[in-house]
């Protein structure tokens, strides 16, 4: 057996003896610190990334789906919408699509009690969206997100469905809405006055939809038939088309297919859900991702310093014994290996306990209780790969942090170490 093999074997033996005979409270405390370090590396980062994923997830799930087609910037509507929808439907990866008519509208509550035109009533300016309820539900599943009342039906001509951010009682974005107008007392069943392009119509609130996505929750929904009347649309050109592809489809390829099959003069913007995310939200997601990485980096640095201090203090206080070990013929390499094994033991124990806590408790907890924000809801985004990657990083850090202090102490003169000089 080579000397190096002996270094490993004897180093492991020394490390094991030290760990077994150390004060169990001290060992427990070090492992606890390692556990916190690993949690710190993964938890806040996971929450921030989870929130970022939640934002983009709700945007895709309830609004854009896999592909979103909108008019190009110099157009108000998607021209030749029927032809475009036919092209989309010919896509091999096509599953569903929904189209939307959109336009600005004013919604007023309590207008019946106003004596004069200038008297104030509850009102809100928002985007009126005309949908085919069945098609919309097939793509965005909004019927499952009704928090009060019920979902629209195709026969509803005088009913509206409101996003939760338009009514105080259901709004999750109260702080954001401060200062802007919001319907304070209206509720399901309330009669509202809907004004579009000078046309006024009394409508009844049929349901409230809440998705935790500000785009969806800030809209007024009406059936496409009613919307076409209000917007006075004589043709079938729409403002938005959201497309769902079969699961696992490559959205960029689908986008290219549609683009290639459209006429040259079709001026539309075809975007994947990622591309369609508003720049503010996209910036927020990027910031969260960056913050997550920074937090993980700082946690790693703190963890490295912790291991270094623990091993260094251990090595320094046992300088005499390291001297004795060298004095009786134990190589410096063996002593270094012993301290590296100890550092790895603390790190591995911390990682195992933290992983059990993360996967067994925290992840299920966040799935059941996601964090709600005005821009979306997020849970803990942790994958096995994340855990493995961070565990490897922590182990490498533990290796280095265990080696350096041991190396610093073992390189001292043997006699000086034994005599405490």
């Amino acid at each position, binding site marked *: 057996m080579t000397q190096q093999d002996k270094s490993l074997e004897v180093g492991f033996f020394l490390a094991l*003896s030290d760990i077994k*005979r150390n004060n169990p409270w001290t060992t427990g405390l070090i492992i606890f610190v390692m556990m916190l370090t690993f949690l710190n590396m993964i938890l806040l980062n996971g929450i921030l990334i989870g929130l970022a994923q939640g934002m983009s997830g709700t945007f895709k799930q309830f609004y854009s789906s896999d592909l979103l087609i909108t008019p190009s910037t110099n157009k108000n509507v998607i021209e030749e919408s029927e032809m475009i929808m036919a092209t989309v439907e010919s896509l091999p990866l096509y599953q569903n699509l929904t189209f939307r008519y959109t336009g600005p509208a004013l919604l007023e509550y309590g207008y019946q009690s106003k004596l004069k035109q200038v008297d104030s009533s509850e009102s809100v300016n928002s985007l009126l969206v005309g949908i085919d309820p069945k098609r919309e539900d097939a793509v965005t599943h909004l019927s499952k997100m009704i928090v009060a009342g019920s979902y629209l039906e195709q026969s509803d001509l005088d009913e509206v469905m409101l996003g939760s951010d338009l009514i105080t009682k259901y709004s999750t974005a109260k702080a954001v809405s401060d200062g802007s107008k919001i319907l304070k007392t209206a509720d399901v069943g309330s009669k509202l006055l809907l004004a579009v392009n000078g046309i006024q119509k009394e409508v009844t609130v049929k349901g409230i939809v809440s998705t935790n996505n500000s785009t969806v929750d800030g809209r007024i929904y009406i059936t496409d038939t009613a919307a076409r009347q209000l917007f006075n649309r004589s043709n079938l050109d729409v403002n938005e088309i959201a497309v769902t592809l079969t699961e696992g489809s490559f959205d960029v390829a689908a986008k290219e297919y549609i683009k290639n099959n459209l006429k040259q003069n079709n001026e539309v913007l075809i975007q994947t859900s990622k591309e369609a995310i508003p720049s503010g939200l996209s910036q927020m997601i990027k910031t969260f991702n960056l913050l997550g990485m920074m937090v993980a980096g700082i946690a790693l640095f703190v963890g490295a310093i912790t291991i270094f201090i623990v091993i260094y203090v251990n090595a320094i206080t046992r300088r*005499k014994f390291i001297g004795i070990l060298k004095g009786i013929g134990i190589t410096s390499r063996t002593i270094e290996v012993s301290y590296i094994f100890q550092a790895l033991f603390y790190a591995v124990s911390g990682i195992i306990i933290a992983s059990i806590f993360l996967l067994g408790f925290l992840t299920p907890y966040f799935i059941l209780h996601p964090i709600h924000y005005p821009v979306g809801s997020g849970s803990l985004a942790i994958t096995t790969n994340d855990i493995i990657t961070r565990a490897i990083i922590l182990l490498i850090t533990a290796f280095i942090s265990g080696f350096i202090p041991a190396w610093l102490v073992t390189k001292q003169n043997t*006699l000086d170490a034994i005599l405490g000089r």
Partner: protein
Amino acid sequence: MIEIQNIVKKFKSGDLETTVLKGISFSVPKGQFLAITGRSGSGKSTLLYQLGLLDHPSGGSIIINDQIVTDLYGPKRLEFRRKNLGYIFQDYAILPTLTAKENVMLPMMMQGYDKDFFNQKAIESLKKVGLENKIDNFPSQLSGGEQQRVGIARAIAHHPSIIFADEPTANLDTESSEMILNIFIKLNKEGQTIIMVTHEPEYAKLADRIIEISDGKIISDKLLNK
């Protein structure tokens, strides 16, 4: 067996240079029990550190078993020390996290011996020093004399050519000290070469030969008739 030629040891502290050993020469034949005595600060322990390869002399040479050990450095020096020398420290220097048996077998583990072999050797050594009933005790469960006997068992387990003992009884009571010295006498009778540093003249008289050092020089070298 040991040839020491003109050993010099200097220490430097800033601009101040102190010569602790001033050209010491002597030889020790195989199987001799040599006591090195002298007053505190005379240089006797420093001399032992040079002979035991724990330190490197500033000048001169040391030859052990026909090998010029002053020319050895790094791993070769460590390996020579591990295979050929046994060292007993004044304050026992046994490891608190290891049992008596583990302390004894540790240096042999590094030499690549078979596990059964070093286990057996460790038990044999502990029997030799009368600790057969305490092989699994930790240092904290042993008296000072017993801890020093563990130190002796560790030094002799691998059958070194020479045992160096640095004031082995300095921290012990009379009874324990006599027990340690009896072990040395017994080992020496079995043919073991022992070089012991002591400041106790009575203990030195138990050796075959006494070298007295003062101010870094040998002032007397006596063979005792036994």
